[in-house]
C-alpha cells in the first residue's frame, strides 16, 4: 500500500559521481522493504516534465525528529535528475512509494551474494541488513566503469563478509566487469542466492552465472516507466510464469525484482513470438 507524501529536502550531498538525497518521508519507512522504489515528481510547478522519476530506496529511517526519512542515490542523466541535483534544503519534492515488489528473502540461513553495477548498489544495504538479521552470510560484489561510479564501498566493506570490486579502468579492485569476478566469488562462498541490481546486460549475465553455479537469482530491473503504479503498460518485459508461459509483465508492479531465470533477458525490448497475445504471423 503506497502513500503519497510531500517530502522536504533535508540534505543533498555528493558521493563520487552520484548524489544522495535525503527527504522527510513520514509513514514511508514502516512500509518499505529492500528493493522497493519510489517515484519522485520533478520540475516544480508549471514544469514541462510530467512524469515521475523512479529511484530505488537506498535507506529509510523511521525514528528521529522528522518522523521518517528517505534516502535515494542518483546519477544525473537528463533533465529530471539535473533538476533534483539542483535542490536545496527545505525544497519540497512529491514522493509516491513504496512501489513495486521487493527482493524475496530466504527462509533459511543461506549464503547470499549481492552484486551491483554503478548506483545499483543503492538498494543493497537495506537488503544486506535484512539478510544478516536472518543470519544469512552476505558477500558483496560491486562494479563500475571507474572508481567514482562505485557507490557505498565503505558501507559495503563494513557489512559484508567479503567485498570484491571490479572497475573497467582498474582504478580500484580488479580491472574488468563484475561478471569477470562473480563466478569465483560464487564458488568461494558457496552462494545459494544471488541478488543483483544494475544494467540489463549485467543482470542477464549474472543470472546465467548464478544458474551455472546452481544458485537462485533475484534481479532488480530498470525499465522506463510512465506511471510507476501499474496502470499504463509502459514498463513491460517478457517474463515466464509458473506454467512456463511468457507474458509481457509490468516491471513497476510485478517487478522491479524478478527471479532472474524467469526473465527472458535476450528478448527484452521485443515481443517474443511465443508470448501471450503476440501478433500472429501471417504468410507462409
Amino acid at each position, binding site marked *: 500500500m503506497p502513500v503519497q507524501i510531500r517530502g522536504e529536502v533535508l540534505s543533498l550531498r555528493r558521493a563520487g559521481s552520484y548524489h544522495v538525497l535525503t527527504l522527510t518521508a513520514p509513514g514511508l519507512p514502516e512500509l518499505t522493504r529492500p528493493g522497493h522504489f519510489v517515484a519522485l*515528481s520533478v520540475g516544480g510547478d508549471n514544469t514541462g516534465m510530467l512524469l515521475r522519476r523512479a529511484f530505488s530506496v537506498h535507506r529509510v529511517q523511521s525514528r528521529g525528529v522528522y518522523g521518517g526519512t528517505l534516502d535515494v542515490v542518483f546519477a544525473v542523466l537528463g533533465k529530471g535528475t539535473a533538476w533534483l541535483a539542483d535542490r536545496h534544503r527545505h525544497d519540497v519534492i512529491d514522493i509516491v512509494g513504496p512501489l513495486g515488489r521487493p527482493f524475496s528473502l530466504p527462509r533459511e540461513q543461506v549464503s547470499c551474494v549481492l552484486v551491483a553495477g554503478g548506483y545499483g548498489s543503492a538498494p543493497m544495504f537495506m537488503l544486506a541488513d535484512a539478510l544478516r538479521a536472518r543470519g544469512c552470510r552476505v558477500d558483496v560484489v560491486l562494479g563500475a566503469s571507474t572508481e567514482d561510479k562505485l557507490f557505498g564501498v565503505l558501507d559495503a566493506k563494513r557489512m559484508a563478509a567479503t567485498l570484491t570490486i571490479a572497475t573497467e579502468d582498474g582504478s580500484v579492485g580488479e580491472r574488468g566487469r563484475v561478471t569477470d569476478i562473480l563466478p569465483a566469488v560464487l564458488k568461494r562462498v558457496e552462494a545459494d542466492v544471488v541478488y543483483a541490481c544494475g544494467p540489463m546486460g549485467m543482470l542477464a549475465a549474472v543470472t546465467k552465472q548464478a544458474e551455472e553455479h546452481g544458485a537462485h537469482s533475484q534481479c532488480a530491473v530498470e525499465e522506463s516507466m510512465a506511471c510507476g503504479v501499474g*496502470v*499504463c*503498460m*509502459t514498463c513491460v518485459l517478457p517474463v515466464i510464469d509458473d506454467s512456463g508461459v511468457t507474458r509481457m509483465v509490468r516491471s513497476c508492479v510485478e517487478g522491479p525484482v524478478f527471479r532472474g531465470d524467469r526473465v527472458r533477458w535476450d528478448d527484452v525490448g521485443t515481443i517474443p513470438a511465443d508470448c501471450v497475445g503476440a501478433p500472429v504471423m501471417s504468410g507462409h
Partner: protein
Amino acid sequence: MTRAVIGHGPLPKEVRDLPEVDMRTSLASSALPNPVLTASGCAASGRELDQFFDVSSLGAIVTKSIMVNARSGRATPRMAETPAGMLNSIGLQGPGIDTFLDKDLAWLRERGARAVVSIAGGSVDEYTRLAQRLRHVPDLTAIEVNISCPNVEDRGLVFACDPYAASSVIAAVTRNSAPGIPIFAKLSPDVTDIVSIAKACIDAGADGLSMINTLLGMVINPDTMRPALAGVTGGLSGPAIRPIAVRAVYQVHAAFPEVPILGMGGIRTGIDALEFVLAGASAVSVGTAIFN
C-alpha cells in the same frame, strides 16, 4: 474535482479547484455522481488506483481498450516524455474480452465502481463481436468505442480518420449492443475535419462522443539518432495537447449542441476541467495527469 478524488496518490493533485457544488451529470442516459472519469488506458481497470483513493467516488472508470483476444502490445521502449506531454505506443496490450469480463469488470462491480468499457478492434467484425459479448453484461455505464485503430482489412487505415469507416464501426456496435446503453464514439484529432467524423458517428447511432484521443507524434533520441519508441511513432497526450482538445470539443459542440461530449486531453486541474465544460463537455476524463 470532488475532494474524494484527490490527494491520496498518483492522481491529479490539483483537480479540486471547482466549487463544491452538486456535481451530478450524465453521459447520455447514464447518471454520474460527478463529472470526473479516468481516460482509457490511463487507469487500467481501476484496481491499482484504488490503493490511492476510492475509485467508486469517480464519475466512472473508463477501462483500457479491450480487444477480442489477448494482445501483447508493442515492443519497448513504449514511452517518451515530451514538453508538457508524453508519447505512448502501448499497442493495446490486454488480456482479451473474456478475461477482462471475468477479472477486471467483475472486480469493478464488486467494488461498486461505475465502468465505461472501452472496446477496440481491427475490423468491423471484431467490434461487432465485442458489442455482442457486452450485450448481457449488467450495469455498464457506457461503452466507449475506440476507433483510433488501424483497420486490418483496409491497409491499416485508422477507422477514426474516415467518416465511412467510423460510421461502419459505430453502426455495428449500436446494432449489437443492449438497447439503452450509451455508446460513445472516441474521436481522433488527427483529421482534417473532426465535425464530419462526429457527424458520421452520430448518424450511425452514437449517443455521445469522447474526445480527444492522442495525436500522432514522434521523438528521435539524439544519442542513438533513432526513434525513441520501438514503434517509431506514438500518441501524444498531456497538457501540451489541451488547446487542441478544447478546440475540438468546442467545434463539435457548436455543430451538435445536443450530443453529450466526454472531454479529455491534458486535464490536470479543476480549472482545466472547467475549460472543457465551458467548451461544451458534459463530463471529463483525466488521463496522463494520473501518472504525475
